[in-house]
Structure formats: C-alpha cells, structure tokens
C-alpha cells in the first residue's frame, strides 16, 4: 500500500520535473539542458523572496514564476536561437548555460543545509494507515491540475494551438502565419515556468541544494526519453513507470539504486526503441 501511495507521489514529482523539458523539446526541438539549473535557481529566488525579503509566500511564488519565465525567454532569445537546428551546439550551449548557473550559485555560497522553503500546508493525514503529509498531497493535486491545464491550454487557446502546430510541422505553421521564433520563446518561457513550479512544489520536501540541478536534469531526461522525446502525454505516463520502478527498487534493493534505475531506463530505451514507449516511430531519423 505504501508503495502505491509513495509511488504515485514520486511519479507526480517526476512528471512535474519533466514536463517543462518535454514541452520545450516538443515545440522547439531544443534539448534544454539548462532545465536543472532553472529548477534550482527558482528555488533560490523563492527563498530570497520568502526568507530574505519577507514577502508573502503566495506572492513570492507568483513573482518567481514570472522571473524564471523571463530568464528562460532571455536565454532562448539571445543564445539558443542562434544555434537552433544544430543539435550538438544546442546541447553544448544549453548545458554550458546550466553549468554556469549552477556553479555560479555554488560559488555564491548557496550551499549547505540552510536553505529550505516552507511547506504549503503543515500537518499530515493517514491514508490507509500510512501517514502522508499534506504537502505531498498538494504536490499530487497540483501535478494533476498542471497536466489538465496544459491539455486545455494546448487544445483550446490560440497560443496553445499555435504551439502544437509548430510542434507538428514548423514550416506549415510558418505558412499559416505563426511566428515560429516567438512561439519558441513562449515555449521556453512556459517550460522554465514549469521548472520553477516543480521547484517550488518539490523543494519544501528537502533542502535546496545545487546538486539537485544535475539530478533533476537526469530525471527529466529519463522521463522524456522513456516517454518519447517531444511527447507530453508519453512523459506523464513514463513518469509513472519510472516513479514506481524507483520506489520498488528503493523498497527492495536500497536507495543507492534509485538513480541507477533512471539511468538504465535511458540507456535501454534508447537502445531498444529510441523514440520512446509512446513517441511516434521515426525510424530513419534516429537510427541507421
């Protein structure tokens, strides 16, 4: 039973981490390796607002989301846009940006156990005799809400439809008057905001540490690859797959193997079925 409950929570957390990455890759085909850095930086920005400046928690969450969205948009507009389409340059450039942010934070002294965010709701509740604190329930709730919101957004709003059009066929979208550069900026801003949201939701469960950036990046990549790069619903389903697999290994093998599961999932998925479990098969693009 506790496997079921904690598996669900873990899966939702993974889905939240990965959605931003999946969104950016799905729309602009840029593997945003700075995702982990954006995650960590939004944690610190929120911390700065709440603990250092003493702003109201909800207000600071809101401000953080805006700031991180702008940061993501700027990164795309001024750096990534110039290397778009060159797969390797994209990876190197975005990874270098992420590394610069993370190591800059580390240099700035943001390390150690002193940085924590408050939880939304204190206390815990027993579900089937397993104690679960409210915050974890909030994570699951908001996770579901975000997925639902994304679905509605991409199916029923102008911008969302434009984004989907671009994801499907960029040239056709251009011909229909969709500004692909602008849409890519929007996608990047949205992806960064999702990373920020994930950070704000998940970081209260532990400390804010710079190393989390690397782990989040790996987990996000794992989820996106297992689900199929560029497929959002695939990412959500894959999050459940990996989430439960992780909880199972932690219960039966030991916590050391948690990361090994994610990494092996990446390797085996790529070897056996590079387009992921739920992605469209594009045989000639990905393998010889």
């Amino acid at each position: 039973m506790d496997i079921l409950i904690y598996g669900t929570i873990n899966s939702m957390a993974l889905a939240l981490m990965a959605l931003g990455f999946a969104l950016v890759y799905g729309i602009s085909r840029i593997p945003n390796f700075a995702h982990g850095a954006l995650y960590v930086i939004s944690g610190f920005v929120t911390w700065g607002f709440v603990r250092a400046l003493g702003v109201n928690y909800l207000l600071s969450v809101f401000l953080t989301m805006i700031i991180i969205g702008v940061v993501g948009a700027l990164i795309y507009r001024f750096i990534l846009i110039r290397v778009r389409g060159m797969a390797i340059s994209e990876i190197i450039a975005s990874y270098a940006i992420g590394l610069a942010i993370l190591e800059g934070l580390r240099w700035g002294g943001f390390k150690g156990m002193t940085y924590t965010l408050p939880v939304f709701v204190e206390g815990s509740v027993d579900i089937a005799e397993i104690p679960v604190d409210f915050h974890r329930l909030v994570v699951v709730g908001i996770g579901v809400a975000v997925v639902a919101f994304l679905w509605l957004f991409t199916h029923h709003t102008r911008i969302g439809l434009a984004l989907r059009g671009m994801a499907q066929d960029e040239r056709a979208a251009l011909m229909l008057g969709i500004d692909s550069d602008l849409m890519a900026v929007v996608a990047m801003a949205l992806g960064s905001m999702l990373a920020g949201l994930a950070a704000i939701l998940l970081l209260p469960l532990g400390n804010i540490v710079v190393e989390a950036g690397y782990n989040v990046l790996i987990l996000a990549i794992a989820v996106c690859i297992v689900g199929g790069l560029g497929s959002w619903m695939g990412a959500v389903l894959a999050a459940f797959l990996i989430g439960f697999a992780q909880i199972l290994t932690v219960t039966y093998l030991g916590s050391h193997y948690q990361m090994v599961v994610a990494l092996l999932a990446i390797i085996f998925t790529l070897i056996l079925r590079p387009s992921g479990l739920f992605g469209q098969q594009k045989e000639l693009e990905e393998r010889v």
Partner: protein
Amino acid sequence: MNNEQGRKERLDRGIKVRTDGLYAIMSLRELCYLTVPRLVLIVGLLILPLVMPSMYWQRVISIVCIYAFLALGFDFLAHFVGLVCLGGAFFIGVGGYLAAILNTSFGFPPLVTIPIATLLGGAICTLLLLPCLPLRGVYFAIVTLMYPLVLMRIIEALNILGGTDGIMGVASFANRWIEQYFVILMVLLFLFGLRRLVNLDIGLVFRAVKDNDQAVRASGMNISFYKAIAVFVASALGCLGGACLVHIYMWSGISLFALDFSILPIAATVIGGAGTVVGPVLGCFILVPISELLRAFGTLRIVFYCLILVAFIVFRSEGIMVYGQRKYHQFERWVKI
C-alpha cells in the same frame, strides 16, 4: 545611392597551390611553407616541459595532454564519423580502473599496464557501446552522456572496486621526465596518426558514414562495423588518457567518471576548431592552463569557462584553428558586386 555591396573573396595563396602536390619539394621556401607549422608544434611540445618554471606547471602539462587525448577522440568521432560522444569520462574511467587493477592486483609496471589498459579498455568500451551504434545525433549523444554516470552509480551502489574510496597505491612513473615525455610523445603520435587515418581509404568510408550512411549501406558496407572501429580508436585514446592519469595521480576513484572529462574536451574542440584534429589539442593547451590559473576563484572558473564556451559556440563556431588555417592558406579581399 549606396547600393554597392561588398563580398569577401577568398583565394588560395599561390604557394599553397604549388605545394599541394609533389612539387612541394622543388624549393626550400615551399618546403618551409609546409613543414614550419608542423615543426613549430612538434618542437614546441617537446621543449615545453623544459621551459616550465615549476613542478606544478609540469604536472599541468601532463593533464593537458590527457585532455588532449580525449579531445582528439571526440573530434575524430564527431567530425569524421558523425558520432557525437559526450562520454569522455566513460573512457577515462574504464582505462583508469583497468590500469589501477592491473597495477595493484597483478603488479605490472606502468609501461605494461598502460598499453594493456589502452587496448583492453578500448575493446571493453566498444563492446559496451555496440548496442548504441545504430543511434544517431542527439540520441547517441544522450546515451553516451549517461554511461559514465551509470558506471559511477553502480560502483557506488555495489561498493566494488574500492567503492567511494577508490583504489590507492597505484605505482607512479619512474620519474617526472618519463611521465611528461611519454604523454607528449603519445599526443604527437596520435595527432599525426589520426590525420593519416582520416586520409586513408578507411577515413573516406568514415566520412561517408557521417555524410550519408544510407549510401554507404547501399555500397554493401557494414556501417556498424566501421562505426565500431572508429569508436574503438576513440575509446582506446580515452583509455590511454585514463591509464596515464591513474599513474600520475597514483589513485583511481569514481571521480574518474566526473563530467569534467566529458565537457572539457568538447569545449577544447569547439574553441580549437572542429574537424581539424590539431585544433582540439590546441584548445586543450589554451583551456586547461586557464582553468589552472583561475583555480583561486573556486567554482567560479567553471562559470567563466562555460561563458567562454557559449560565446565561442554562438559567435565564433569555427574555432581558432580553422580561422588560422584560412589565414595561412588564403588571402581575402573585398570585391564589389
């Protein structure tokens, strides 16, 4: 009315045209044109340990050379075979651990363990990467990025090979001059060897695999076989670096799988000039000493580093060596059109 537009015209220098063929040996001037850049590199590398002021900087040269092995391998794989391998740390780790085990458990001296670790490590890496060889582009890049991380976590989790403590007490080189000249000579050997290799027939096949693998397949050649050979060459280079590193530091541990070994050679290749083989070596000789100079800044040096890398990749993606070669071989002028 200012609608005249300029265009930069590039012409080969006459001497370049003359020295392309056998005629290069006709005159001393043309011989010099061909050999001086190469001699500058070779002689420069050979006297470098002698002019270095301190032990510390001599050690830096060895480290530079180890990164140069990785950068050579990366450049070869990425720009001549079309496989972008982000897993330099994987090669370093496999080679390093092999050398350490051979040395501590079997008692072989460094000059025996290094060749064995190079060849055996290359074979192991190739074997492990074999299933990924059909992958292309970003998929291959991601999968190779994950390999060192997996090995690191597995060693950590299973607590094998010394676990997080690593393997201590590995023998060092007989003295520092042997260490320096061994790695420098190896760099030179592989530098010119790779340049030779990519101009052989097999090099042609490699480039064909990069440009149009379907055409290679249609010609009745096995793509995976050629890719495996290329991966073997590159991973053997990396393993050589790893083996040397272990013997220099007299220690082998999971930090051999650190991301530095994957990222720095790529940065060096980007800055030095991709696809020139000599460029990456040059890039290492620029980047590694800079990072040593900036050591006082702690992790801020990685920030500098990344910013330099981003600037290069966004604004000057051709790299120093391509630029230099162009200036050396061609002259440019503006023409009105």
